[in-house]
């Protein structure tokens, strides 16, 4: 289950919305190499303000292919390295510093944090004080927060969050054109990287490795023995063939069937139609995605047009009935949306079925923390400070030289990925995608879940339910009632295995030469 909406938020969120304080997301800024003049991004050549239209396909920056709709109008922000290439005292002035006055000594991230405290009007006024503050003040993530807080899901996205705010605030039609100035000679690694991460496509080499095990038509027993018990991921094919959803879930039908029903999108709720209008136009580093745990309650057809693949039907949390934590979600999002590294809550396992589109997965076993990820000591918080794109740019290459490399794959329409409990995973949509995911507890992870729910800080860690502290008691009671003796049985089985031999870690148990032909060195 992906984590909730993140953004530039230092100011305290409304109590109802979030229970944990948002951790500040530090961007890991890489020092960009100096670019020779002839290699500078094409954005510089945009002369005409009106020529804000999409960049030509195939445009490239620093070896990254830009998305066709990359926002070239959004200033010609350049990395700091370029500043050094320019000769002469006047031409080496960075528009950033000139227009900040005393504020210039603040690093970009702190300055942006100041701006997160400003209401819309003050932010707009600030943007009109100088070119530099115009660049900072029109940083679109700031306006996203303002739109969502003020208008919730009731907005019509018009190309950028700032335009959306202005249009929604003015309530006049037709909308007056919004002035968009292109500011040149502005150098900032932080903002350049922000633009870059919002604008680039996934590099082909990031998609090349596909070393997950794939199976089609195996028995439930084989699944349990080979994957669920040893806690190994697998990609299963052929399970969705009977799903009506595979044929019926296209945009047009979804919008028709769901009409005015609102679905959870980040911190707000909106209709499918509005969501698609947004997702088609969004050019963001962290696009909002539709992610709703009540979809089957809200629209009965949705719940009836899919069913749980046979492998995952033992779901012990179902004993809790209405008191069970959130366990199933519909996920809809554009290319670039997804979830950075996290472990699923409550020590549950999960499956994720792609109905439309495709997803790239990167997974690490529980004992390996992915590079760039910093879980807190008590496990209460998982801070992955970087966005998905940033993670690939800055950390992906590093782990490819590790002996214990991650499990990776691209999961396409009709396929299901099994995510064993405790595994770190990152997932990104490679195109417009629609998927269903469920978390569950079976005999294989029953003990882990019981353990987890008993932890002293269960209050903080357990998620998806209103009654955290008592979940352990309720669950244990429910199991003992419906499956008397199961806990003892499972415990005995595990102890038996431990006594026989040391329980192998994932890496030790991999022997399959089919898996990409690379070898692990055993501990």
């Amino acid at each position, binding site marked *: 289950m992906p984590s909730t909406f993140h953004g530039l938020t230092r100011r305290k969120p409304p109590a109802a919305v979030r229970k944990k304080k948002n951790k500040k997301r530090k961007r890991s800024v890489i020092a960009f190499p100096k670019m020779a003049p002839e290699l500078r991004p094409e954005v510089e050549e945009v002369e005409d303000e009106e020529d804000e239209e999409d960049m030509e396909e195939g445009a490239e920056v620093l070896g990254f292919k830009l998305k066709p709709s990359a926002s070239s109008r959004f200033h010609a922000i350049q990395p700091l390295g370029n500043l050094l290439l320019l000769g002469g005292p006047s031409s080496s002035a960075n528009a950033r510093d000139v227009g900040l006055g005393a504020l210039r000594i603040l690093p970009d991230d702190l300055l942006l944090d100041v701006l997160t*405290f400003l209401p819309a009007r003050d932010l707009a006024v600030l943007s009109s004080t100088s070119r530099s503050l115009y660049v900072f003040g029109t940083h679109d993530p700031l306006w996203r927060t303002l739109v969502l807080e003020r208008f919730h899901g009731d907005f019509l996205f018009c190309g950028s969050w700032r335009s959306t705010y202005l249009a929604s605030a003015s309530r006049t039609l037709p909308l007056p054109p919004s002035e968009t100035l292109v500011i040149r000679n502005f150098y900032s690694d932080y903002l350049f990287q922000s633009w870059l991460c919002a604008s680039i496509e996934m590099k082909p080499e990031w998609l090349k490795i596909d070393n997950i095990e794939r199976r089609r038509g195996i028995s439930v027993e084989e699944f349990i023995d080979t994957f669920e018990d040893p806690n190994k991921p697998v990609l299963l094919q052929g399970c969705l063939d009977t799903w009506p959803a595979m044929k019926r879930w296209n945009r047009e039908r979804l919008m028709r069937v769901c009409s005015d029903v609102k679905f959870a999108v980040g911190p707000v709720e909106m209709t499918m139609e509005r969501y698609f209008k947004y997702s088609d136009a969004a050019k963001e580093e962290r696009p909002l995605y539709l992610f709703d745990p009540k979809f089957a309650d809200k629209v009965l057809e949705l719940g009836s047009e899919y069913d749980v693949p046979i492998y995952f039907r033992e779901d012990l949390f179902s004993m809790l009935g209405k008191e069970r934590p959130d366990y199933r979600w519909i996920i809809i999002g554009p290319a670039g949306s997804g979830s950075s590294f996290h472990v699923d809550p409550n020590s549950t396992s999960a499956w994720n079925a792609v109905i439309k589109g495709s997803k790239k997965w990167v997974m690490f076993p529980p004992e390996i923390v992915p590079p760039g990820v910093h879980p807190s000591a008590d496990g209460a918080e998982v801070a992955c400070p970087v966005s998905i794109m940033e993670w690939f740019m800055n950390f992906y290459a590093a782990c490819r030289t590790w002996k214990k490399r991650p499990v990776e794959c691209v999961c396409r329409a009709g396929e299901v990925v099994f995510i064993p409990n405790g595994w770190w995973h990152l997932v990104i949509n490679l195109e417009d995608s629609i998927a269903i995911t469920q978390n569950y507890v079976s005999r294989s992870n029953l003990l882990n879940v019981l353990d987890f729910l008993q932890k002293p800080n269960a209050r903080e860690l357990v998620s998806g339910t209103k009654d955290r502290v008592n979940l352990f008691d309720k669950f244990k009671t429910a199991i003992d009632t419906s499956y008397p003796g199961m806990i003892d049985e499972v415990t005995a089985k595990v102890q038996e295995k431990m006594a026989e031999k040391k329980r192998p870690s994932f890496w030790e148990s991999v022997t399959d030469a089919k898996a990409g032909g690379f070898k692990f060195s055993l501990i």
Partner: protein
Amino acid sequence: MAKMIKLVSGDGAEFEVEEEVAFQSKIIKDIVADADDVIPLPTVSSKVLIQVIEYCRKHAAVNSFPLSPSSSAAAAASSSSSISYSKPVSDPALRAWDNEFVKLNNSSLFDIVIAANYLDIEELVDLVLETVADRIKGKQAQEIRRQFNIENDFTPEEEEALRRENSWAFQNN
């Protein structure tokens, strides 16, 4: 007997502070965990360090809990707040003290926030950022420029266009 940590500013001045005061800085807390009691802070001047220590001292006395989420959960459980912030949000005396503390000129404030950011003292960073934001709120463009000594490098046409846009968007506010 409270354990003491020694902080050394960029200009060589030494400051001995109680451990719980120094631990308001997450960075220092981590360094000390690796058994190092003398901590050089080359990028922080003694003037700024004195102010930062003053803040930490005040806040250590108020929070008996270190800045970790699980402990703050304990704090939250014992107060009526369900939001896991590490200090009781409804402490007017502390807020008043904070408000006095930030009555400084911009330059001093910025030095403090940069140091607090470096030392990872989250509450102090938030406090200063909010203070700077307060100095922007409710002002017209020209007042903001005066406040921070900002040069207006727009052309008159650009400035006019922006002003039109703002007044149209915010006329009802």
